């Protein structure tokens, strides 16, 4: 509770420190406008036109329905990878054999291009939610798994010994010695896993479904509707930036205050 209050208390200062980021985004939009003036509206619509399309789209219930479908798939996929990755990663970390055995499997999962998984998933599950969710899990599970694995593998014997010398009861050992260390590895892995989820969910939808943001993007492409395509991209990037910078980054700062 104290922790959450502290995050909220530091939040205005954190926001205020974001002016640099705002300036760089505005600079990026300016470059975009230059691109529009050089290449014309069909290739690269102007930012103004894109944001106009965006605000029209956001008033349309059908668009919100698509967004919700994508959100649903992303959250199911991410939640499953988070739980599976964290639990299995922690277990694998505690046993030397398990962590040795899991290494090559993780390499296969990380090394295999998501597009190949989409093809397989389409054969296995057909066109629909399962294919998208499966692809999301396959892509973001290994990231979280490796984070949790490393968190447990790198626990220091020195601190364990210290905990033993003070005869810390098991719940204190967990809460004061193991958890903060593991969390400092697992949390960043969750953040990267979330970024991966968001990218993969749209790609899988584009190829394997006929609803969701990804599918809308495919429709926009087939109709050469560049403003809509760009507006969809803005929705995706905007929501990712919101989650990352407004929600996760302030938490991360508090959690990692003790780090060098």
């Amino acid at each position, binding site marked *: 509770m104290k922790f959450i209050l502290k995050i909220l208390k530091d939040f205005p200062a954190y926001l205020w420190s974001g002016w640099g980021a705002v300036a760089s985004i505005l600079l990026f939009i300016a470059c975009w406008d230059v691109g529009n003036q050089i290449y014309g509206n069909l290739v690269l619509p102007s930012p103004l036109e894109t944001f106009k399309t965006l605000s029209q789209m956001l008033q349309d219930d059908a668009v919100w329905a698509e967004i919700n479908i994508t959100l649903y798939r992303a959250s199911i996929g991410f939640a499953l990878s988070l739980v599976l990755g964290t639990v299995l990663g922690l277990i694998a970390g505690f046993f030397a054999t398990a962590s040795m055995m899991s290494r090559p499997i993780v390499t296969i999962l990380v090394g295999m291009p998501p597009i190949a998984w989409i093809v397989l998933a389409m054969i296995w599950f057909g066109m629909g939610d399962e294919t998208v969710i499966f692809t999301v899990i396959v892509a973001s599970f290994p990231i979280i798994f490796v984070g949790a694995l490393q968190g447990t593998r790198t626990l220091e014997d*020195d*601190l364990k*010994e*210290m905990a*033993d*010398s*003070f*005869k*810390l*009861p098991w719940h*204190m050992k967990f809460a*004061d*010695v193991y958890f*903060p*260390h593991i969390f*400092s590895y697992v949390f960043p892995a969750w953040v990267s896993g979330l970024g991966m989820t968001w990218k993969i969910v749209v790609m899988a939808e584009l190829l394997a479904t006929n609803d969701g943001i990804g599918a809308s993007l495919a429709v926009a492409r087939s109709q050469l509707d560049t403003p809509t395509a760009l507006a969809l991209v803005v929705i995706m990037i905007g929501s990712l930036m919101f989650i990352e910078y407004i929600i996760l980054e302030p938490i991360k700062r508090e959690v990692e*205050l*003790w*780090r*060098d």
Partner: protein
Amino acid sequence: MERLEVTKLNHHFGFTEILRDINFTLEKGEVLSIVGPSGGGKTTLLHLCAGLLDVEEGSVENTFTSTSFAFQEGRLLPWKNVIDNIALGLLAKGIDKRSAIEQSQEIALKFGLEEDDFDKFPKDLSGGMRQRVSFARALVVKPSLLFLDEPFSALDIGLKKELQTILIEMIDNKEITILFITHDLMEAIRLSDEILLLEADPGHIVKKFQYELPQKERDDKFIYAQTAKILQDETIIHTFELELK
């Protein structure tokens, strides 16, 4: 009567013999130091006595009611601030949070930390400050037996003396029993009632030295004289390989 009794203790790591036939007794109120060259099994012996390693052969009987350990490199929890680090041992004993924090603050001030430091994380402390915190953490639980693993070796002379003075005060009041390992003979002479000399490969005790004079009355002159004397000792010369080569 509280005591630590080590009899016929042997220890191996794999096929390497680390300790052979270690015997000694530490009575309440005494300070026993074990000196010897680095890599001679001193730390292993201390860990066996403190129960951080399992005894394989021989026995270690510890009847002291409470013990604590101060490590060579502090070993503070990097995610806890100064006071929470010190309070760790108290909380482990089930003392309620508020009084644990109060006791920790009190001892922190006694060990030369300032109120501004209380909320700092270990990364923001100097090496000397970390060692103060580590000492405070070990002593705040008021252990009847304290294990010290070369805790002064990385400290400057001033801080070394300051921490030793606190210990000497406690020894003088018969508040504490200490088992202490070091490679610094002067330090051992300043603090100990008895010094055991541990020769390496495998670690075994080759000689004992005893000092009757109370620690509080040992001045620099006494310590220099005793150090000079002990350095002339054949066994010491041999054990520390001090022969001119």
